[in-house]
Every structure is written in structure tokens, then in C-alpha cells.
């Protein structure tokens, strides 16, 4: 592969933001080099590629860096035409995908983090808020799966599938560590079916971090966060 067209992804294995970029590249069949960043000791390379945020993921293509996971996903979709089209053609449908992708990445993720960082009575209220947001997504999904049956194959995966599976593919990890059913088949039946269909796809299942490794990591993060907030 010519040097100019080389693709490099700077990531961090537990990061859902980096994970979604990895999944997108694999779906499109784009050969790439993966560089694992140690976020406790960021490389000079990362700092020079993303001086504004100093975060992963960063995609480098044709020697030029792109940061911000959803921005990267749209770039990948516009640049490589193999594999599934991540965004639909119709502008209204594109708007719906962008709306919900942002909802998952900001609203849902934010709720999960808040639950993880809180103990006691206050936590109950936050869990209920998280469920409420999940219910909103479940309702919103009806327009994507009008017959109520999400059947998915790798050729037809879209941006929202990629974003959601990156954040919630490891939901059993969150359930184990947080002690509440993040994806409840009774509260959010459509989300439950959708995620099950996504996790049946080998490419997605294999790209997500292994369960036990993720549990150990999340436990460590939560314990450190709680320690520092009660110190």
C-alpha cells in the first residue's frame, strides 16, 4: 500500500469511541495499522495529531489526522465506498441517524457514567433516569424497525448500529459491575432484540473487548473514581 494512502488508527482498547472507528474500518474492508495508546502516558505522536483534545480516537489518512469519533465515521463513509453505507441517502433519514447517534453517544453514555460514579439513594434516581432515556431510544427505534423485528446483516449495518454496539455491546459487563439490567427486555424490548441481532454478527462480537478483561477494567476505573470523590 502506498505510504500516502496508509490508514492508521490511534485507539485505546476499552474506549467505545475508538471501538466504533475500528468497527467502521473493518466493515468497509479498509486495511489499517492500529496503534494502542496508553492514556495515562500519552505519546508525543497523539499530542501532535490531536493537539486540541489530546484524545483517542485519531484516524490518520494520507498523512492527515482526523479527530472526534462521529466525524471520523462520516469521513470513512464518504471516503470508502466498499461495504455497507453507514449513512442512508435520504437527507431526512440521515438526520434521524445523526440525531440518535448523538443521543446514544452523549445522553446514554452520560447517564451510565453518572450511575457508575454514584452510590446510595441518589443512584436509584439516576438509574431511573437512565431507563427513561433508554425508553426514549426504544420508542425512536420504531421508525428504523417498523415491523418490530431488527434482522441485521453486515452488508446493511449503519452508523447507529455501529455507535450503539460500541457503547452497549459489553452491556453484560455494565450489568455485572453496576448491578442493574442496563438492557431490560421488558422495559426496552426493541433495543433488546436489536442488540441481540448485532451481537450475533461475528465481526462485531470479535471486535468488542473480551468480557472478563472489560469487567476488570471497569471495576478498576469505578473504584478509583469513587475513592477520589470520597477522599
Amino acid at each position: 500500500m502506498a505510504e500516502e494512502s496508509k490508514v492508521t488508527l490511534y485507539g485505546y482498547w476499552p474506549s467505545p469511541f475508538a471501538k466504533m472507528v475500528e468497527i467502521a474500518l473493518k466493515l468497509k474492508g479498509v486495511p489499517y495499522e492500529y496503534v494502542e495508546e496508553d492514556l495515562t502516558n500519552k505519546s508525543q505522536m497523539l499530542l501532535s495529531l490531536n493537539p486540541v483534545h489530546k484524545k483517542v480516537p485519531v484516524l490518520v489518512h494520507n498523512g492527515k489526522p482526523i479527530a472526534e469519533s462521529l466525524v471520523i465515521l462520516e469521513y470513512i463513509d464518504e471516503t470508502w465506498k466498499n461495504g455497507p453505507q453507514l449513512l442512508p441517502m435520504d437527507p431526512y433519514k440521515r438526520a434521524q441517524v445523526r440525531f440518535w447517534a448523538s443521543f446514544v453517544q452523549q445522553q446514554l453514555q452520560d447517564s451510565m457514567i453518572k450511575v457508575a460514579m454514584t452510590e446510595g439513594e441518589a443512584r436509584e434516581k439516576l438509574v431511573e433516569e437512565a431507563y427513561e432515556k433508554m425508553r426514549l431510544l426504544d420508542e425512536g427505534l420504531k421508525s428504523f424497525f417498523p415491523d418490530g423485528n431488527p434482522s441485521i446483516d453486515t452488508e446493511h449495518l449503519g452508523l447507529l448500529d455501529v455507535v450503539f454496539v460500541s457503547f452497549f455491546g459489553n452491556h453484560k459487563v455494565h450489568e455485572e459491575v453496576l448491578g442493574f439490567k442496563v438492557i431490560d427486555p421488558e422495559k426496552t424490548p426493541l433495543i433488546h432484540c436489536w442488540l441481540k441481532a448485532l451481537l450475533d454478527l461475528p465481526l462485531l462480537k470479535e471486535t468488542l473487548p473480551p468480557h472478563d478483561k472489560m469487567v476488570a477494567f471497569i471495576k478498576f476505573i469505578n473504584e478509583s473514581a469513587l475513592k477520589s470523590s470520597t477522599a
Partner: protein
Amino acid sequence: MEEGVKVVGFWPSPYSQKVIWALKQKGVAYDYIEEDLSNKSQLLMKSNPVYKKIPVLLHGGKPIAESSVILEYIEETWPQNPLLPKEAYERASARFWIQFGAEKGPTFGSLFTSTAGEEQDKAAKDALEVLKILEEQGLGNNKFFGGDSINLVDLALGWLAHWFQCIEELVEIKLIEPTTLPRLHAWVENFNQVPVIHENLPDKKRLLAHMKSIREMSISAK
């Protein structure tokens, strides 16, 4: 002939203003519906059940919420007078700065509700840092974020050219000055001279009074 376009907005909001700017820049006719946020309409609740916020764009009766999503929809539906570059990398760059602006909202919010003292000094310092990044890495030596003419990034950051000055006046700190941020200061002047912008700004005095009361409410609620 496009099917009915409606904008549900709120006159002091920079979020609904950027939707108006984009539509006007493209010459798209629309009906404007002023929302009373203290008494939200059925239309708003139905069109944006997730956030119950303005702005909402309705096109042929179909609602779209979230200003950044609305701007991309407008760009894709009415391609005349393009507001995003054609080339993929430049588009990614534009989207990066739109997101940066959105993420840094709370930084300016902190400044807006700060009162004199250590809290305000820190808030001013943080805001200045963001503005410096915008000037040095976002704007560079360009007249506009879009280059020679405005694009979605300028619209997304347009609040800095009119609403921010009200914040500066209320907290009595001037951050965007020709000595400290020469290029950003020039951008503010240039942006305000673009006809579509110039003709579509809320009255400064009325806006200042509105923002003053919001600020006072926020401070007393702290």
C-alpha cells in the same frame, strides 16, 4: 417548489438563529413560529419529544431537532450556496470545529453565571483559552472559518459575534479584543457585515435585557 418549511424558535436563542441564517443564506422560504418556553406548545412537544427544545425544523410536516443535525439537513436538502466544503477531509475538519464549539458551551456558561472573584477569574481564563484555540487553530489566517465566505462553522460559532458581547458586558470582562485576539476580533466584524447575518440578529438592547434577567435568575438559584 419545496413543501412547507417551518422553524420553531425562540427570538433570543443563537441556536434557532443559526437555522434561520442557513435557510436565508440558501434563499429557502419558511414560516417562523415563536415558541413561549415557559408554556411549551403541543407542536413543540410532539415535534421534539426527546428534548422538548427549540429549534425544530419541520419540512413537509416531518420534524428535525438539534441545531447541528438541522444545519446538515438544510445543507443536504438545498445544495445551492454550499455551506460545507466538497472534499472529505475539509468536511471532517469543519465538523470537528462545529463539535468543538458545541462541547465548549459549558465553559462560556460558567463565565456567564460567574460573579466577581476567584470563580470568575478562572472562568474568564478558561474561556480565553477556548477562544485562543479557535483563533489559532480554527480560524488561522482566514477571513471566515469557511475561508473567503461563511460556512456552517461560522454559523455554529456565530453566537460569539453578537451574544458573547452581551456576556462580556454583563460580567464586565472584555475577552475578544484587537490586542488579545486580533484575528477573532476581525472575524466578529466581518461576520456581522455579511448581509444575511446583519439583517437577522436580535435587537442588542432587548437581548441584553433578556440575558441580564437569565443571569440574575441563575445566580440567585446557585
